[in-house]
């Protein structure tokens, strides 16, 4: 029988969604679900939710709750990671400190100053997890859902090459659904190619029934109602020629064009500080979910668009499928750096995950992704080597930060954030006070 370890299972709603998907497959009935969280109350809530979901689905799962991560990992076949290191408090620091310097952010979890610091405080955990997986469940596949996706996945394959790891995100399937709704076609009928980095996957082929639908998407953009739903991404398509994944609010902070000043924010309806509101809502939702569970109430059980359960099912049954995932660039995207973390089509079957070769992105799209891959590289190196200088380098090279802040301001933001996050950061970064690059 297979065992799936959920690390950070206290993200209860996400745990429920993944389990709903897993239990939908008859072949995955009787799975052992090993839940781990460092917060006893959240762990208990996750356990209740997992049992309830299994019961509803008649899945006959064995649900285990482990405060000890090693026990959860022991002999697991799959490890799903969804931790959030530092939780809401750390997120607030990532927003508030840059904001005092005039740097606005929307989500701050994947790139930019917020992404760098979320990466720095999460990578040490990822390295521990990789080490423990090598010891306790060699060969198990690590499905990473935690952001910043590219940096965390990269850190694992760089530091623990024997751990099969993929980064999973719903940005591709959601975007396909959004595009389908803009042009009024069923999303199941869309065919597409895409490549890039997580959250910036460029859809370089977009077809429905053999027809290129870019002309229809370009026409849809002229409808003010549709345009208003996705201003940033439509502008990027207008200027760069292709539609990008994830969302307008995310992409606003990946470029210098939309968030630099109030006039731009207004023109493009950029929801500044959006993730703070979502993070607060998550806390409320968690509390409500726990109350409902304790009161014996039910929850909706709809299939999600997440790839996790599909990967587990394909590996277990051998049924082949294609997913989009973040993975090491072994020349898959030829004009992005070797070794960087790219998001491409990845085939899954009984023998595991094998990425497809993409080739060359149109040059303007590769140029759009490359600076972010460079910042991710520097952040991963900063964390792995304990090199504080690389934190400044990463921050200076972030496109959005550089469009708003001076070099001195960037250095000050970095220093303040290092100070504020304190022990959560890798040791060398905290203690090594060199600012040679200032």
């Amino acid at each position, binding site marked *: 029988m297979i065992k799936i370890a959920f690390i950070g299972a206290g993200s209860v709603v996400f745990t429920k969604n993944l389990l709903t998907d897993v239990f939908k497959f008859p072949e995955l009935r009787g799975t052992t679900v090993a839940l781990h969280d460092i917060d006893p109350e959240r762990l208990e809530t996750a356990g209740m939710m997992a049992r309830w979901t299994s019961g509803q689905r008649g899945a006959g799962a064995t649900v285990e709750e482990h405060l000890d991560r090693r026990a959860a990992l022991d002999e697991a076949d799959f490890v799903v990671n969804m931790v959030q290191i530092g939780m809401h408090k750390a997120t607030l620091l990532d927003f508030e400190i840059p904001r005092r310097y005039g740097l606005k952010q929307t989500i701050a979890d994947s790139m930019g100053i917020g992404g760098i610091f979320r990466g720095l405080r999460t990578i040490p955990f990822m390295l521990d997890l990789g080490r423990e997986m090598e010891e306790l469940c060699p060969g198990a596949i690590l499905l990473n859902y935690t952001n910043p996706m590219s940096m965390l996945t990269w850190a694992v394959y760089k530091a623990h090459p024997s751990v099969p790891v993929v980064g999973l995100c719903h940005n591709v399937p959601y975007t396909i659904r959004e595009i389908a709704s803009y042009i009024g076609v069923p999303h199941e009928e869309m065919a597409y190619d895409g490549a890039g980095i997580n959250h910036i996957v460029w859809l370089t082929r977009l077809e429905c029934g053999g027809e290129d639908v870019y002309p229809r998407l370009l026409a849809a953009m002229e409808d003010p109602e549709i345009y208003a739903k996705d201003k940033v991404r439509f502008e990027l398509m207008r200027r760069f020629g292709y539609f990008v994944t994830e969302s307008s609010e995310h992409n606003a902070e990946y470029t210098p064009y939309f968030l630099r000043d109030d006039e731009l924010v207004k023109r493009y309806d950029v929801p500044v500080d959006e993730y703070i509101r979502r993070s607060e809502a998550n806390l409320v939702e968690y509390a409500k979910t726990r109350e409902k569970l304790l009161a014996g109430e039910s929850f909706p059980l709809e299939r999600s668009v997440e790839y996790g359960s599909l990967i587990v099912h394909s590996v277990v049954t051998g049924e082949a*499928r294609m997913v989009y995932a973040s993975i090491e660039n072994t020349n898959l995207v030829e004009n992005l750096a070797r070794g960087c973390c790219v998001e491409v089509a990845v085939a899954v079957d009984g*023998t595991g995950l*094998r990425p497809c*070769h993409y080739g060359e992105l149109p040059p303007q799209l590769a140029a759009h992704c490359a600076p972010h891959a460079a910042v991710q590289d520097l952040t991963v190196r900063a964390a792995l080597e304990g090199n504080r200088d690389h934190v400044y380098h990463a921050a200076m090279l972030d496109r959005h930060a550089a469009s708003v802040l001076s070099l001195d301001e960037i250095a000050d933001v970095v220093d303040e954030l290092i100070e504020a996050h304190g022990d959560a950061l890798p040791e060398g970064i905290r203690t090594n006070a060199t600012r040679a690059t200032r």
Partner: protein
Amino acid sequence: MTKITFVGAGSLVFTRNLCSDVLLSPALQDCTISLMDIDSERLCPSRDAVRSIVDRRGIKAHVEATTDREEALRDADYVVTTFQQGGLEAYEMDVQIPRRYGIEQCVGDTLGPGGVFRALRTIPVLLDLCREMEDLAPDALLLNYVNPMAANCWAVDLATGRPCVGLCHSVQDTSEMLAEWADVPYEEMVYFCAGINHQAFFLKLRRGGEDLYPRVKKAVGREEIRGREPVRIDIMENFGFFVTESSGHASEYMPYFRKNARMVEEELVPRFTDERNYWYDFGRTGGYLRHCLDRLEESREEYAELQASGGTEPPTARTHEYGSYIIEAIEKNTSIRVNANVPNHGLIRNLPDGCCVEVPCLVDGNGVQPTTVDRYPTQLAALNRTNVNVQELTVEAALTGDVEAVHHAVMLDPLTSAVCTLSQARAMVDELLEAQARWLPQFREGLKV
């Protein structure tokens, strides 16, 4: 409505099987099947056989047959090639002429002088076909079954860039055999296989968490199993992995097994002890050619039977050929994995860029999507490269009409170079070029004959 065109539909058994597969797919039962062959005498039996399937199953598919290739290609969605340029007449030369120079080919359709010349005859036809498809079926997917797979597909990619997938059943056959040897149910075996056509390797062979190689290695200790596949077992024991094409074939892609007639008859043939391997005559030189000549008679008899009985019961199950599954997956946007031949663009990094590799491909509504092979074992890549060298020069010769490239291809063939001096190889190629000139339009200017 989906239109599927078969070029070279006179291959009765193969055409009937592929069409039966297609017509057993619920998604394709109202398709149009267009059968084309230049030989109307061979085309009629195929047409009758396929129509009989449609009639017997009572489905709506439309079957047409024509000797006009343009008519067959017009508005096709899929073009399946199964032709054999020069037929058995040319094939006989591929085997018999080299034999006089001491080249003992068992099959001679993949590598060696036979494979080189089969490619040289075939590639001009494939390129003509692709040119016609440009106008008549610009978006159609080409499913090539014609050997030599690697050189043919490589030439199509290099010359036209057209979407083309090369299909063979060696992976299916071998995986089924290995499941039997390992004594596990086929459905429960998981494999990962990659390399080049007819020389791909099972890199992973598992059932659940169990590596099945130890079981295979144990099974080959049994005399009756060793007698089925003596060459492939040798290759596994020396190169570490099991290869996809049968022992008769495999023996001629390497220099070790058939350096002269005595070695074939006295050392190699006696190692084949399984009666089921009759079709290449236990590794004997020309074994497959004789099988083809016998088949010709059989298919005439089968056709007579078909006409007499008004059609035999059509098959009720699909064969393991990938063709119908690929078409179905694309049409219905369902997912399947196949091992197919595609251009090596970043797929196996220790094989040359652009050469034709056989790798797992995921097929769905997005088309045929090849997957990458990480850390392909060095010794396997090195072995493949001895074959890829020949393919590369063959493709160059076919596309440029450079006669010297033909000489280079054959001189670098592993079997030829184990047997012939350079001047012998040159004389042999000259003789083949002269004998086959009518099928080799690309060399007309360069040839002295």
